[in-house]
């Protein structure tokens, strides 16, 4: 079995939409989450607050630099993710297809490094 990260990178403007407009994808995502828990492939999943809530910490230099905001300037940022455990990429892609339909965003699939 291999663990894959399924991540969504929405345009930050989705955070400004009224809740009623997001309700449908929230509901669909909730159903999808219950399904993959029942199928035994769920490891973890959650959504993130907007990227402007992020803080970046850089301790690679002699001084620790703490900066308000995400690591990279971009319009799209990581908005939420699933970690799933499935046999191979074909299985992961099939789950990603369902995830994308549920949340209404494109989904990136990346394997975690093996143990």
């Amino acid at each position, binding site marked *: 079995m*291999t663990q894959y990260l399924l991540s969504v990178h929405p345009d930050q403007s989705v955070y400004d939409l009224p809740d009623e407009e997001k309700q449908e994808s929230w509901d669909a995502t909730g159903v999808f989450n219950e399904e993959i828990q029942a199928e035994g492939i769920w490891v973890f999943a959650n959504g993130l607050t907007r990227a402007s809530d992020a803080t970046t910490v850089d301790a690679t230099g002699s001084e620790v630099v703490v900066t308000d905001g995400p690591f990279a300037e971009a319009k799209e940022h990581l908005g939420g993710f699933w970690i799933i455990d499935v046999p*191979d*990429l*074909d299985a*992961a*892609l099939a789950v990603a297809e369902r995830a994308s339909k549920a949340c209404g965003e494109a989904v990136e699939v*990346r*394997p975690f*490094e*093996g143990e």
Partner: protein
Amino acid sequence: MSAPADVHAEISRIVREEHGIVVASLARRFGDLDIAEDAVAEALLIAVERWPVDGFPPNPAAWLTTTAGNKAIDRIRRESKRDEKHQAALMITDDTPPEPTGPVEDDRLRLVFTCCHPALSPEARVALTLRLLGGLTVAEIARAFFVPETTMAQRITRAKAKIKAAKIPYRVPDTSDLAGRLGAVLAVVYLVFNEGYLAGSGDEALRVDLSDEAIRLGRVLRQLLPDEGEVAGLLALMLLTDARREARVAGGELVTLDEQDRGSWDRALIAEGHTLVRECLERVASGGTGPGQYQLMAAINAVHTDAPDARDTDWSQVVALYDQLMAVAPTPVVELNRAIAMAELDGPDVGLALVDRLDLDGYHAWHVARADLLRRLGRGSEARAEYDAAIAATENPAERAHLTRRRDQISNA
């Protein structure tokens, strides 16, 4: 075997023929493409040394599989001294040949679906297929696609790394996914064919014949998936196109279909292509699924190659086939070709009206079609300007020569 040159030519032929089989069977056995490929490369080095001296083994593929298998076990054993995890791999001591459970289980079929997986970039799919299944060297593939060898080597290495890290499965897709995934495989083969067929620049003598390679891959697929209409369709399409290769260029100039010397078409390839097209028609008639794009394109080419003279072409049949093609693959290029056929059926004015509706400015075939139709309508100055646009839009020297002559033939009237 006489001269060493012959022996080496024979070895090259065997390598091309057997590389896919040997790599595929080792990949299944060891579950790792890198180990499989490296082991086969080592076995080939030994073959090149031994075969000219000892003579060819009775079954070269079996010899290569056994020798490469031993090399792979040696490597795993070496590495397992450093890395206990590989100990498990040593447990696999399966020396039996690939299980003969029918064509669908052929290891090469797994390999081709892995090489053409949609999670790989199209360039990587082409490169991997030619390297692993076609047995071409990285240098040969790099030359064929006009990229530096290091770039091609990197492309292949990165693709193999992704197959391993992302766990792209080494498996024939389920029946429910087969049609879609097969489409990606056929697209790779057709791209390789067209790259060879349409290539107009570069040092031809140094290039591997990609069209021949694509046809060879097409034949392998046909053997592995004899009941898939699109596989037969693609092979027929390539054969019927390749049959006209000699007639297509004369004196460095492109010769269009209507002006080709039909006597120089390869009759054997045409007969084989027609047989395949008939088989596809029968399969569809007996209740199979409707024909896909390759079968329809093959059928169009069958109509053309059926006509002893361009004037005998059954254009209503061609238009009917393009109508069907529009239903399964509606692209502007198909529409353009349908418009050209309509011009033959209903006249150049009808054709031109259809061509003008298409948003293909900058696409050389669109300019060529406009130019030819304007010329036939006697609109000389417009036709000349359109030939200029067509010449500017193509790099192919044979095509430029043809278009330049056409343009210069237009009288100033």
